[in-house]
């Protein structure tokens, strides 16, 4: 057995999930409140810092409220964990886990960096270098619906149930648009390995920004239209999959109290909350990987350099995280701008508009590819 491989995988798994994703989830909850506050001309949480006064100092360090997530977490832990009498116990406990785990599992195939040169060996910065990357993420993400459906059903009361039913129909509908919109992308790359897709973009320009390498050819520019459509449909479907704002019907407060997690409290509610943010982060990661060049630095093809130097790999990781953070900001920005859809509008949009658009886009891409390649 190759101990180096095992050890590096372990470090990658624990490092990426526990040191990157989970802290990011925590920071996202803070960022969400900050962004919402800024959009609504408020200040947002800016108090919680290092409580130096407890240790006898004159002043606290406010730290712009960066410790707020810790305070939130503490609050969730200290709250009473209520299990109503009328719920189906086993599934009631299982549901929060089932929303959190798939969200964290999907990060396995997302390349969060290029290579890291550790002691002369180049280590690929992806947990599982599968040849079925996007399919894997869709497969695992589609399991996330179980958590919500079970939560709604196990709660054994009407609002959660309606939330659960809504979410499953919404997720199934938008999964189709999601899957179809990624097909043209895969047709262009002719590759299902997310790592290779990013390396290709590193060499020849991002899918949506073909400005260097082979990307400057007119063929790539001709493909920009279907790729743009793919990007838009994929992003919107991703919003729907993660139950984010214009599509947050499973938990819309004005109609369903709190939707599928109405009956949940304390840490179990926090799991839903965190699962949603984790899904959002992974979704952003996937969009960045497919359309915006993953870890690559614009205009500088640097994959080879990362194999020999140690700092380039770190730089790539930083680049990836920056892009993901920017996209998460976009998620939040949209949430605090757009109102919620009505449910029939949502279904119409998914089935009549995006499904058709994505399907037509596949043929459009095939047509352009046929003209361009011959």
């Amino acid at each position, binding site marked *: 057995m190759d101990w180096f491989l095992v050890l590096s995988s372990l470090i990658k798994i624990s490092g990426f999930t526990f040191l990157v994703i989970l802290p990011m989830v925590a920071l996202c909850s803070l960022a969400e409140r900050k*962004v919402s506050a*800024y959009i*609504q*001309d408020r200040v947002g949480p800016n108090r919680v810092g290092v409580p130096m006064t407890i240790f006898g100092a004159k002043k606290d360090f406010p730290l712009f409220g960066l410790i707020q997530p810790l305070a939130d977490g503490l609050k969730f832990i200290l709250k009473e964990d209520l299990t109503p009498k009328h719920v189906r116990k086993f599934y009631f406990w299982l549901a929060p886990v089932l929303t959190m785990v798939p969200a964290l599992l999907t990060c396995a195939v997302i390349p969060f960096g290029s290579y890291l040169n550790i002691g002369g060996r180049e280590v690929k910065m992806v947990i599982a270098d599968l040849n079925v990357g996007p399919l894997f993420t869709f497969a695992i993400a589609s399991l996330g619906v179980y958590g919500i459906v079970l939560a709604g059903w196990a709660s054994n009361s009407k609002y959660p149930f309606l939330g659960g039913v809504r979410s499953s129909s919404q997720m199934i509908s938008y999964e189709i648009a999601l899957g179809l919109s990624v097909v043209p992308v895969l047709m262009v790359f002719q590759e299902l390995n997310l790592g290779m897709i990013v390396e290709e973009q590193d060499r020849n320009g991002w899918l949506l920004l073909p400005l260097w390498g082979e990307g400057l050819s007119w063929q790539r520019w001709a493909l920009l239209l279907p790729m743009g459509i793919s990007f838009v449909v994929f992003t919107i479907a991703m919003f729907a999959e993660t139950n984010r704002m214009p599509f947050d019907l499973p938990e819309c407060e004005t109609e369903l109290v709190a939707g599928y997690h109405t009956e949940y409290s304390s840490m179990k509610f926090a799991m839903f909350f965190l699962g949603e943010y984790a899904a959002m982060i992974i979704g952003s990661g996937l969009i960045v990987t497919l359309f915006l060049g993953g870890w690559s630095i614009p205009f500088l093809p640097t994959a080879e350099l990362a194999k020999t130097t140690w700092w380039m790999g770190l730089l790539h990781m930083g680049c990836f995280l920056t892009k993901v953070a920017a996209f998460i900001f976009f998620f939040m920005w949209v949430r605090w*701008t757009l109102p919620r859809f009505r449910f029939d509008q949502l279904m119409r949009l998914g089935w009549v508009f995006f499904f058709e658009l994505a399907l037509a886009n596949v043929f459009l891409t095939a047509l352009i590819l046929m003209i361009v390649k011959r």
Partner: protein
Amino acid sequence: MAYVVERPKLSFAEKLYFPSILKGLKITLGHIIRLMRGRTKVTMQYPEEKWDASLPAHYRGAPTLVTDEVGRERCVACQLCEFICPPRAITITPEQIPTEDKWAKVEKRPREFKIDMIRCIYCGMCEEVCPEQAIYLRKDYAITGTTREEMVHDKKRLYELGGVREGLVNKWNELK
């Protein structure tokens, strides 16, 4: 007259939603940027910034007892304020002023005067009803304590907060 509201005809661009979505995004981004650059007025950051300086003259803060210019406590323990107080925050224990006292002709004074600040609703009824103009609402608003007992202001504390108030009623003045 019956009036029929025409349904607006949407143009293609409007039906696409995207232009208006982008417009909305632009507006919200504008708000973010303006706030980050400090162009937006936001809520006062309370403990650091206070509005004490701009409190209006009629501000109703904590009710307090006052003494007059010669140091006599004005309250004559008539208990009118106790009975008018809507939430019954005031409890007065009256006593007779001993005959050898300089102000014996006033006859009554409060032995103890308690205002429960957890109950008080800062309505100002006590101030209005007092015939002696002995009770006033001052501008203290940050009244805190860690126990219930601490939140009950006794006579000593009330005079501490109230201080001296000159003029107004002179009916117990020797010269009159």
